[in-house]
């Protein structure tokens, strides 16, 4: 336990951590070289599209995938060193895939993991009961895991990961395939754990979920392109978010969409109900208004996290493209 006293302030610390897959021409840098500092009790989100490297990063934190470069410490322990067992003791993982035993019942799955973690007696009994009551799985103990709904299955996975009372809980896209009410329930659970001092790292492709985190890292192609509290990230957006109110001319929607999508001025665009939502550099606002003359009028609107995310990715792609051209 000596290792943990030196960096007690941080729950998870990575320094220039990275992981490659394959080699030679097929070398794929899944995660570049990321340095993260996640303090105790933080609900930290890894946000990014598929293939951004979120799962790889999470697996390195969980001790499942050794990094190609850099180091990771969880509660001060190196999951790949001599302290691996200490690291396992303080980490719980909820993988993205259905990774419990579907042919075992809820109770049998819990018993199995309790055995592997060496839990027993009064400690196990009270903890198990508490987990069953907060996940409301208590009445389904005899049901096979494969027959649970998506939301209940995830809650069981969370319960199995929390049986040994870890200080850090890692969740990989926990709300994937979970219906909205269960999604909300799951998030409420996470808040409850964080309130009790647990550190939580969660990956998600959903922008609305990003804003539920204390702090997020935007990931794209193995790198972090922005990291801060979500509301501060949104406030820092230095581009104009505009709503296009369409004029009542034939095919206004189709023509406006085509124009917006092909325009050099536009950073990102998305349909928004009956209108369009467009992000442009502030200096280009007038130019776009002119281009859309007759099709619709522009009005400023409050930026959302999704605007920020799309802008960040689009700008990155643009710089990458110009670099390649040069």
């Amino acid at each position, binding site marked *: 336990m000596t290792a943990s006293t030196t960096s007690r302030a941080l729950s998870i610390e990575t320094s220039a951590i990275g992981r490659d*897959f394959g080699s030679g021409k097929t070398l794929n840098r899944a995660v570049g070289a990321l340095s993260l500092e996640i*303090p*105790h*009790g*933080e609900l930290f989100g890894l946000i990014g599209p598929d293939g951004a490297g979120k799962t790889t990063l999470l*697996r390195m934190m*969980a*001790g*499942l*995938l*050794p990094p190609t470069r850099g180091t990771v410490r969880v509660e001060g322990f190196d999951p790949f060193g001599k302290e691996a*067992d200490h690291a*396992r*003791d303080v*980490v*719980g*993982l909820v*993988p993205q*895939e*259905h*990774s*419990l*035993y*579907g*042919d*075992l019942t809820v109770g*049998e799955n819990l*018993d*199995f*993991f309790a*055995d*592997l*973690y*060496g*839990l027993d007696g009064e400690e196990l009994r009270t903890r198990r009961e508490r987990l069953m009551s907060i996940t409301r799985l208590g009445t389904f103990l005899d049901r096979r895991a494969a027959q649970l709904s998506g939301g209940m299955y995830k809650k069981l996975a969370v319960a*199995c*990961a929390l049986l040994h*009372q870890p*200080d850090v809980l890692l969740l990989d896209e926990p709300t994937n395939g979970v219906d909205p009410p269960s999604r909300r329930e799951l998030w409420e659970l996470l808040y409850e754990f*964080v*309130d*009790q*001092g*647990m550190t939580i790292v969660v990956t998600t492709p959903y922008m609305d979920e990003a804003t539920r985190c*204390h*702090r997020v890292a935007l990931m794209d192609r193995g790198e972090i392109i922005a*990291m*801060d*509290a979500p509301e*501060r990230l949104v406030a820092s957006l230095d581009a104009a978010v505009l709503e296009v109110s369409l004029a009542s001319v034939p095919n206004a929607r189709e023509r406006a969409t085509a124009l917006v999508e092909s325009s050099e001025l536009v950073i990102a665009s998305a349909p928004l109900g009956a209108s369009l939502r467009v992000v442009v550099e502030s200096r280009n606002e007038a130019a776009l208004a002119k281009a859309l003359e007759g099709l619709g009028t522009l009005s400023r609107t409050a930026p959302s996290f999704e605007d920020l995310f799309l802008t960040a990715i689009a700008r990155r792609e643009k710089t990458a493209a110009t670099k390649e051209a040069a």
Partner: protein
Amino acid sequence: MSEASLPRTEPSAALPRTKSRRRTSSLRRIFAIARKESLHVQRDPQALYLALGMPIMLLLLFGYGVSFDMDELPVVLVDEDATPESRALSDAVFASGELRIAGTARSADAAHQIFADRDANAVLVLPRGLSESIARGEPVEVQLLVDGVEANSAAQLQGKAEAAVRAASLSLGATPAMAMSPPTETRLSTWFNPEERSQLFLVPGLAAYILAIVAVLLTALTVSREWDRSSIQQLFVTPVRTWEIVMGKLLPYFTLGVIAELIVFVTGAWVFDVPMRGDPIVLGLASLLFLLGMLGQGMLISIVAKNQMVATQMATMVSMLPSMLLSGFMFPIENMPLPLQVISNVVPARYFIHTLRGVLLRGNGFAEVWFDLLMLGGFAFVMFTIATRRFKRELA
């Protein structure tokens, strides 16, 4: 980066942070894995059918169906002589019932078509002038054409026809002389011992073969299934050791293997009267060592393959085929080309079959089979060592 805006919550009393370092025991984790694995087997009884149904089915199939002793072999008769003497000869040849007249033809030339149509395995030609030879007391020459494609039938036919013609011609007072002219493709080999009933020879080999299939296939799926289901992630984040996973998974399949083995021996003794002339303790020991080796091989395949389909194919390739073809089960090792003989040295079924035949039929004990036991034990040890070493605790 500023952290001032972060919500900070002090650890509450509900989940106490201070906890005793748990001292977890390997034994408990091994039994947890074993119990879980048994539940898988109970809920998906396919493995049970494989372990318990397959031995019985294979034994009955081989024991009854694949008897090497034949009756009523179809033969086409060409009676070119067409005299009372030639008819008497042919009646005598077919009287015993071992050969059966499948039809008649006018000339031996028709034989090609008959073989091509697979209507008969042989053509018996009684040549013109046969009655005169008998009358003059000269040697009688009949011709037997044998379809050599099916080597075993050809060998048996040859023997049976020869015996029948000899007996028949003796009763007719003629000196028999038989000209054998099998077609060019004939490849005959004596690969079973005519002194013994074929079951006595087959059952020990079958015991090894069945055990190889059951043990390797059962374990070949067990670790690869964890990869397919991605439950391997949940396993690897716990403190469980890879060797504990291997041991835990071994226990239930070892039990199934022992049951399968008992079924084979009991059926062999009961249905096919296979004797037990040697030391049963040696037999038991050899069986356990062989079973462990096969389970270890399956485990290694499972760990290397990382997916159930590849694992099944590998299991078939590296354990079933060698156990059948390179073990002396059907083909004697001494008859094999040198490279195959060398390979057969690392096929554990070879040592097991040698021990089984020795103990069951020849009455051997430790003194005769210690080397086999050593090799079986060595194989098991090597398999488990490699399996545990190759079982890397990481996803990639």
